[in-house]
């Protein structure tokens, strides 16, 4: 049965259902939407089971002709999943029901619209990861922007209008440049299917691959966000409602890194080789810069947002090391970051509902009053700091190992990121949880309710499982990553061959003359 179409369109149909169903009370709406996301999660689990780990090409593919572009280019609605997208699809399907449960408390005004936008966003995100036709990918890529724009704008904090406009325009500028890149790619290669495009792009000389890679990389760099383009993230996170920031951190940022992998490295290996040092430097800078930013924050949500910049710096560092360990680590770290930062945002959302303040100064000593909250908060801090035994460590260790093979110096710099990570996150823990209870309001805070525990425990369990047994998760990506590594090796030979040709004649070895 068309599993992938089902998984993408269940939330969409759900959204339409919720928008139109005449029911008034909010509880029923929340129940229905939770049911829908649960159904999607179930489908996601089914996809996880059906997935055959040792097949590199797209699996569970479905394709139906959609329409014809001028120049006899058939655009078809085609979905598929492979090693690179399986983890992210499952993460999205897994996070959404939990996000919905946590959102149901904090969102009290215009609930119907909120649920509709939430479900549309889930469909958009799943679509981005599953689309195997580049036109469809682009449609889902931009469609997934609109829901968050509305969620940020309507249910956000004080400076939400500025934050949401900035978020939208930033990402859009990148994706419009990518639009030109996509069009050029499509008309140069004559096909819209991503697998065929990857095949074609591999054969192209460096010049062609170069600027196409640049067009794609710019859009994804803004989305990741890489260093110079990151200023939208702290604003967007601080002003977003809890559900918004969990999804933004959990999945939306990963569309950038997923894009860099699928459309950057896999498609244009030669260009990726050239650009690898630049991106590794940007990654390393991102790590240090994000960490320093986080150290200076007084607003705890902004602090977590800056930590995301640092964590994603790791992912990019690992990815553009272009080594086996680096690629595996970055794909896994995408999921890990989603889980640990998602946890942190959920927790901050819960404490915000009780205390209505995000300033660290307003807290202090609440571990006494809310021990369960303290336990979960310390757990998620440890997961995000990369304590061995939890998920963060596996990803970070693989990334650093992979990056070390590529450039030891940059890895040495990035490892300090591990230290700063501990500094700013533990500082936040100390200021929030430990010490005397200075503010009277903190004395009467109620601890986590069973519903909140129900949201947090599955994520923590998953963190533990990935930390102890990452095998099955990494195994699923092995086949596709192996293909990428082969393409990179082939590109390296090409590059070596090309270097030989550039040598002036007298230095050229006998064979190449």
């Amino acid at each position, binding site marked *: 049965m068309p599993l992938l179409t089902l998984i993408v369109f269940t939330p969409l149909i759900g959204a339409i259902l919720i928008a139109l169903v005449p029911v008034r009370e909010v509880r029923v709406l929340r129940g229905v939407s939770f049911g829908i996301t649960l159904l999607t999660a179930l489908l996601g689990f089914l996809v996880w089971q059906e997935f055959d780990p040792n097949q590199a090409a797209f699996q569970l593919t479905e394709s139906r002709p959609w329409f014809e572009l001028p120049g006899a280019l058939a655009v078809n609605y085609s979905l598929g999943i492979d090693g690179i997208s399986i983890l992210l699809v499952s993460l999205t399907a897994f996070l959404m029901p939990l996000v919905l449960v946590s959102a149901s408390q904090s969102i009290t005004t215009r609930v119907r619209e909120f649920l509709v936008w939430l479900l549309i966003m889930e469909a958009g995100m799943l679509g981005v990861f599953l689309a195997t036709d580049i036109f469809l990918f682009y449609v889902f890529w931009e469609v997934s922007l609109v829901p968050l724009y509305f969620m940020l704008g309507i249910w956000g904090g004080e400076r939400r209008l500025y934050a949401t406009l*900035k978020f939208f325009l*930033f990402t859009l500028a990148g994706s419009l440049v990518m639009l030109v890149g996509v069009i050029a790619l499509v008309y140069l290669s004559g096909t819209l299917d991503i697998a065929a495009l990857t095949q074609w792009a591999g054969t192209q000389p460096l010049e062609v691959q170069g600027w196409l890679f640049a067009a794609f990389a710019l859009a994804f760099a803004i989305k990741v966000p890489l260093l*110079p383009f*990151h*200023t939208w993230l702290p604003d967007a996170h601080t002003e977003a409602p809890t559900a918004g920031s969990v999804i933004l951190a959990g999945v939306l940022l990963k569309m950038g890194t997923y894009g860099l992998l699928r459309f950057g490295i896999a498609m244009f290996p030669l260009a990726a080789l050239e650009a690898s040092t630049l991106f590794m430097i940007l990654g390393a800078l991102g790590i240090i810069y994000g960490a*320093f*930013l986080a*150290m*200076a*924050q007084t607003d705890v949500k902004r602090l977590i947002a800056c930590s995301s910049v640092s964590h994603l710096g790791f992912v990019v560092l690992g990815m553009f090391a272009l*080594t*086996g*360990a680096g*690629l*595996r680590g970055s794909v896994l770290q995408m999921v890990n970051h989603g889980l640990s930062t998602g946890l942190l945002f959920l927790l901050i959302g819960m404490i915000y509902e009780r205390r209505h303040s995000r300033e660290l100064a307003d807290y*202090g*000593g609440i*571990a*006494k009053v809310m*021990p*369960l909250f303290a*336990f979960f908060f310390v757990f998620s801090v*440890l997961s995000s700091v990369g*304590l*061995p*035994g939890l998920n963060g*460590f*596996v990803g970070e*260790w*693989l990334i*650093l*190992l*992979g990056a*070390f*093979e590529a450039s*030891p110096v940059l*890895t*040495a710099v990035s*490892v*300090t990121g*591990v*230290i700063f990570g*501990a*500094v700013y996150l*533990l*500082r936040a823990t*100390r200021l929030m*949880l*430990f*010490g*005397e209870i200075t503010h009277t309001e903190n004395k009467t805070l109620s*601890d986590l309710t069973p519903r909140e525990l129900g949201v947090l425990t599955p994520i923590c369990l998953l963190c533990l499982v990935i930390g102890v*047994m*990452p*095998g099955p998760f*990494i*195994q699923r990506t*092995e086949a596709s*990553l192996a293909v990428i*590594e082969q393409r990179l090796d082939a590109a390296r030979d090409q590059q070596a061959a090309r270097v030989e040709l550039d040598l002036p004649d007298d230095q050229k070895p006998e064979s190449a003359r």
Partner: protein
Amino acid sequence: MDTTIAETGQLWPWLIPGLPLMGALLTGAMHLAGLRRPKNDDKATSKPLAANIAILAMAAAFAFSIKGFLALRGGEANILSTSYDWIPTGDFTVSWSLMIDHLSSLMTLVVTGVGLLIHIYAAGYMKGDTGYAKFFAYLNLFVAMMLMLVLSDNMVGTFVGWEGVGLCSYLLIGFWYKDSWRAEAAQKAFVVNRIGDAAFLLGMFILATTLGSLDYSAINSEASLLAKPELPWKLSLAALLLFGGACGKSAQIPLFVWLPDAMAGPTPVSALIHAATMVTSGVYLVVRLNPLFAAAPLVLTLIGAIGAATAFVAGTSALRQRDLKGVLAYSTVSQLGYMFLALGVGAFSSAIFHLVTHAFFKALLFLAAGSVIHGMNKEQDMHKMGGLKAHMPKTCLTFIAGAAALSGLPLMSGFFSKDEILAQAFAGGGVSLILWAVGLVTAAITATYTWRMVALVFFGKERFDKQAVHPHESGALMTTPLFVLALLSVGGGILGLPIVFHAPHILGEWLAPVVEPGQAILAAAHNGHLSHLTEWILLGVGAMIALGCAHLAFHAHRQGTQSDLAFETKHPELALSLSNAWGIDRAYQVMLVQPVMTAASAISTLFDLALIDGAVNGLGRFAQRLGQRVSRQASGHLGAYGLTIGGAACALAAIWMWIGA
């Protein structure tokens, strides 16, 4: 993997770290469950149950360690546990797997043995505390992580234990989190450890990329190839970085600043973590990778130098401490300096020997100090104690036994282990002679501060006010472990009697197979051998110094705090700088922590908000202004429109003509 090791895949080794882990989970669950129940029946029956589960788990782990020890003693080869695949890195796969060999079985014995005693002691010490179950959960978790560290057969497994113990020390130092200075101490401990861990990570990556695997067996065998010239500096760099990690964990210069602050934790914690087990993991790592370090002579000499320096600096700082646990903390740093000095001169087995004896007497001293503090309801300043001999006879007796061992009085365990190190240093000749000299001076200082402490606490006038404080002897639960440890500290020496005593050096032979590859490489380089006469002279000198300084210090401080106060008035700034470890900590604060914080706020406000955000908002405003000008053009004045249209038409005509030409 050489085939001599027993057939692979026994399951029971997993029980050694597994049982404390189970204990931690159980007591943790009890604690969390306890939270759900309303506050009033806090004193519920679950209290002793948590302690019993923890102690049971420790006892079981100890039993299995003994089983491993006996198996190895019976001539069996190293025992390997079933291994499970953990992280596939593309080239090689890291796996969860344990190996019990001579070194790790010894370490497990020490960890579980001393750990068991400390658990029993803690059951008494922590009685009235609200977080009782939580405390035992953390303690058990710590022991589980430490066992993972020592038993793992690859470096990544060790790293799990390495950061695991870092986490538990963070949780336990900040156990009474209500006072923020304890939380800060905990954070400082974790961050400084993390700096060490970062160096450990880099060292691991060098080994992974050059040797292609992180299993100890592979590294140690590969490293012996080091003799060949083609991989010299890479593996030395790896050794140096791993030593950096060891410095972080075992509190050596420059990363020792966290240990004195770690005294903020409950005393059993200081005893277990910051005396007996965690701080020794650095020594264990160097011994485990002894071929690698042996093959990097430069790094070894550096280790020796740092060890000696740390010993001396910490020793002098201990002299001026007024806080009882402060003295013990700096003493630990100093003794660890000794162990690294031993490693520096290649005496791997004597370092382990000192590690074991140190575990006994330092744990004893901490526990005894704990019972003193318990009795003096949380008073830790020695100047407010004195004359407790009468009130706490058992504690005083055991304390003196520990002090004797620490200061290296003849026939005590400390005497044998410390002098063996000094003998090896002396035998080394050349550079290590200087190390020997520093060691000797530090031995004198050690004796001095130890007996100053004994005098101030147990003898002389009672300097506390009677109404508020009623010092009393601790209960049986706390004193029995003291006696057991006292026995071990006094008798521990037999483990490694010097050759001149014509008795077998038990520990040396036991560790021979582990240490032999490293010794082989070192022997190839140089081999100092002492004659019997020099051995006797060294023993004599050591004993004389210990006895002399002990006697002097004891009598100087017998009356009370006069000599301390006199010293402080005579050279105040020296006293002050010595009392906080030569001002190194403050130097870090000023040179490292402040600049980082100001850089962070500078980046956040100046660079991020002003520059990048400024540019982005500027772009927006610029577009707005441009828009104003453009839209103002359409002002409604027809004449202007006509003009622009006419002008544009002419311009177009000009372009066309230009095209035409």
